[in-house]
């Protein structure tokens, strides 16, 4: 399979959507089937040796704290999923690229509302709602962009979508042809949640599963949806075993190998429920009953509210359960899913929750095991027995279809308890009822990956040999349809974004290109309802269009509440009118050392005021932290909580060329006062002409420092080399020629 018109990405340039769309009719996927990460045992990365990591990336954005560990970005051994659903695939591609840079290698594309009920394939690039319409052009463009993104980050990316609804077998063929790597396929999902006729759903599913299996596409099931639907999600756990079992058993019977079957499982509860006590026995029982299969661990959505921090904490606990038991794939949920269609930066937040947790838990199994004695074993056994009883009743009552008809599924009772609130379906009803047709004795399907009785079932060769091969054997036979609708298509949607980009205009966005949506956080000190009304009015006066409260957290019913509001900021900034702050010149390390070492330069440094912070200063000065001592400066460090007078005394004694102060405590603008005090005292002693004054601290900026009499200021992210470059450049300029 040749790759035609491949896209090459450069880390400093945005994805060119025009390049992705060019030559699509000739594009072929470079590989088929699922790819796992490649684990590396005992991997040394930076200062650490990891137990549960995989090969590192060529390009990525590390976790924020990595700054203190040399910028390392270890990758866990589990595949990490993010779900992407903006409705416009062209915007999703940029989101996928951001996600890949943060460590996602399983991109799950949600389908537009209602696609399950469309009897056949959709073509072109129409806009979707809550997801994209899955069409050949959209998935081909997406796969092509992902090829470029995986080259950029240096790791294969699995592309995933859904084989459900009344067009399952056609979508399965499409996915096999276009190099989709993973898919949801579970006929029970159609029956319970989409009211698609159960006979149609199961007959279609066998064909779909056979197609997926032959293409090496990893299958996920849909059992986790029962968690998301049930009122008391932890009580449907016996049913979840039953649903997993039916889809798994059916998949095996249709010819799918065990290693392509992944069970989609969610820890069912969230705090303040005693989460681990309920969720861990369930997770253990599931992995014991289905030990032959893969596990896709999903994070909980059932109890998500609008507080993204609360959600993230639940997701950390979910991920802990994955590490305490096992997971092949750790899926992530955007923490804002409870309040809006996910925003792209929240995909990244969700990925980082999993990545940060899994790195923190690396090697946990060497230290901690789940206790076999105690309550766990009893709970595990009980869950399995409840599931066996459920299966027995299905058979006793006449099989699966009869059980669904009787409303046995998604009942909120803890089986065998029944609350009478399950989802009942008529075996002869639902979408697609009456469309299942008996095969005639001579029924034939002259294609590969076909399931069931078939006239063309050659003992040797392929069923498609009679006409030179089907599209799965000869992809040149695939019929590509470009755009059936000249209005509802990507070219129309791109007109404004491409024009604005060409004009160098930037707008804020969270979901679609230049949508203008911004989020503001406001604390309002008043009674809750009044505070909310005031917050909305404040957003209006900020000039935000359609302001809406998306999160409210009561700090105290009378003292005030915290609100997050979204609204549209209708502002386009012209890039070439921007004044960018000048970047200080950083000198080559060899040049710094060559100038400093022969000159015997002394520097006096301390943390000033009532301030015991010393970390920042050590990083700038100490040789072992890569500080400026290594260039040959003589550093006299006086410690913490040092007075300005003591500092200047030492500067005089050592004939220092510079004084460096660190000022971390900032309340009541203490940092500004310290800088001003240093300047005034040095001036009084007549030191200013020969003594450079430099301040550093997390809230210090160069402009602020200069405004308070310093020669320079250094804030967050400063390195010893930055400070040394400034000192050398300034002292060199002052040297007599």
């Amino acid at each position, binding site marked *: 399979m040749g790759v035609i018109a491949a896209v090459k990405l450069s880390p400093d340039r945005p994805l060119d959507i025009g390049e992705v769309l060019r030559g699509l009719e000739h594009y072929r996927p470079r590989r088929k089937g699922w790819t796992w990460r490649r684990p590396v045992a005992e991997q040394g990365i930076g200062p650490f040796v990891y137990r549960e990591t995989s090969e590192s990336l060529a390009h990525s954005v590390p976790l924020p704290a990595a700054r203190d560990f040399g910028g390392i970005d270890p990758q866990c051994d589990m595949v990490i999923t993010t779900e992407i659903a903006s409705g416009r695939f062209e915007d999703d591609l940029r989101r996928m690229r951001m996600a890949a840079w943060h460590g996602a290698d399983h991109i799950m594309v949600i389908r537009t509302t209602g696609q399950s009920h469309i009897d056949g394939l959709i073509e072109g690039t129409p806009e979707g709602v809550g997801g994209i319409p899955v069409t050949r052009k959209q998935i081909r463009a997406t796969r092509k962009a992902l090829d470029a993104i995986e080259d950029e980050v240096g790791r294969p990316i699995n592309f995933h979508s859904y084989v459900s609804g009344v067009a399952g077998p*056609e979508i399965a063929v499409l996915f096999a042809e276009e190099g989709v790597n993973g898919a949801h396929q579970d006929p029970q999902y159609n029956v319970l949640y989409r009211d698609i006729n159960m006979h149609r759903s199961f007959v279609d599913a*066998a064909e779909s599963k056979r197609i997926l299996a032959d293409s090496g596409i990893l299958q996920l099931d849909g059992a986790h949806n029962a968690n998301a639907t049930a009122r008391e999600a932890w009580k449907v756990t016996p049913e979840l075993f039953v649903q997993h079992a039916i889809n798994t058993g059916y998949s095996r019977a249709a010819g799918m190998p065990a290693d392509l079957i992944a069970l989609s499982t969610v820890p069912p509860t969230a705090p303040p429920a005693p989460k681990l006590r309920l969720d861990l026995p369930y997770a253990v029982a599931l992995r014991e009953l289905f030990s032959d299969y893969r596990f896709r661990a999903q994070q909980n959505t059932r109890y998500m509210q609008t507080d993204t921090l609360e959600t993230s904490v639940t997701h950390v606990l979910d991920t802990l359960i994955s590490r305490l038991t096992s997971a092949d794939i750790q899926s992530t949920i955007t923490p804002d899913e409870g309040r809006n269609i996910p925003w792209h930066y929240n995909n990244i937040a969700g990925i980082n929750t999993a990545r940060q947790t899994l790195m923190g838990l690396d090697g946990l199994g060497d230290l901690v095991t789940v206790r076999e004695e105690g309550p766990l074993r009893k709970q595990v056994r009980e869950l399995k027995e409840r599931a066996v*009883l459920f*299966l027995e009743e299905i058979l006793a009552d006449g099989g699966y279809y009869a059980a669904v008809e009787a409303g046995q599924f998604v009942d909120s009772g803890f089986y065998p308890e*029944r609350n009478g609130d399950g989802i009942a379906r008529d075996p002869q009803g639902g979408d697609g009822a009456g469309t299942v*047709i008996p095969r005639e004795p*001579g029924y034939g399907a002259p294609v590969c990956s076909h399931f069931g009785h078939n006239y063309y079932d050659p003992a040797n060769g392929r069923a498609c040999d009679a006409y030179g091969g*089907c599209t799965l054997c000869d992809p040149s036979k695939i019929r590509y349809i470009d755009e059936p609708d000249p209005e509802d298509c990507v070219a129309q949607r791109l007109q404004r974004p491409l024009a604005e980009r060409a004009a160098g205009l930037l707008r804020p966005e969270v979901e679609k290109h230049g949508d203008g949506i911004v989020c503001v956080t406001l604390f309002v000190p008043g009674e809750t309802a009044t505070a909310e009304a005031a917050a909305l009015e404040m957003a209006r006066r900020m000039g935000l269009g359609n302001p809406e409260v998306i999160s409210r957290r009561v700090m105290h019913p009378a003292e005030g509440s915290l609100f997050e509001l979204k609204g549209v900021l209708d502002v386009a900034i012209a890039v070439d009118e921007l004044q960018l702050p000048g970047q200080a010149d950083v000198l080559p390390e060899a040049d710094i050392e060559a100038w400093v070492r022969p000159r015997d330069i002394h520097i006096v440094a301390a943390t000033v005021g009532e301030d015991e912070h010393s970390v920042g200063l050590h990083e700038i000065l100490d040789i072992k932290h890569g500080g400026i001592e290594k260039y040959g400066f003589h550093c006299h460090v006086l410690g913490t909580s040092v007075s300005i007078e003591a500092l200047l005394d030492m500067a005089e004694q050592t004939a220092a060329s510079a004084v460096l102060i660190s000022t971390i405590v900032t309340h009541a603008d203490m940092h500004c006062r310290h800088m001003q005090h240093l300047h005034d005292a040095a001036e009084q002693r007549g030191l200013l002409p020969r003594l450079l004054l430099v301040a550093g601290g997390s809230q210090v900026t160069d402009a602020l420092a200069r405004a308070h009499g310093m020669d320079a200021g250094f804030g967050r992210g400063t390195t010893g080399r930055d400070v040394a470059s400034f000192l050398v450049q300034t002292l060199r300029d002052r040297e007599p020629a």
Partner: protein
Amino acid sequence: MGCKERPDNFEQSRVRLRELSDEELHARFRELVDRIVEPLIEEARTHTTPSIERSVLLRMGFSSVECRNLVTQMQARGLLGHGAGRLVLELARARGLSVREAGMALLEGQHWELLPL
């Protein structure tokens, strides 16, 4: 819509499972699942649907629009039980056409009277 309400009678119901070892319980679980799945997969082996038939024609090199038109007409004429792919391939063989030519001829309204072959 749901089933009849019932209290949690687990303690009585589990009595006969109590004697089973964990391995025996797992084996019982798998055996029950196989028995539930068997009639479902048998129906799939012996039946087809419009989506399966469209997916067969897709694999034979027809576009989604062509597949929909062909299968809709075959279904209306009660021919789908023979298999859309078989109808097209056998027509091609009988008339000395390529598979694609046979399908296009059907789309133009020709040769329907010959089906099934």
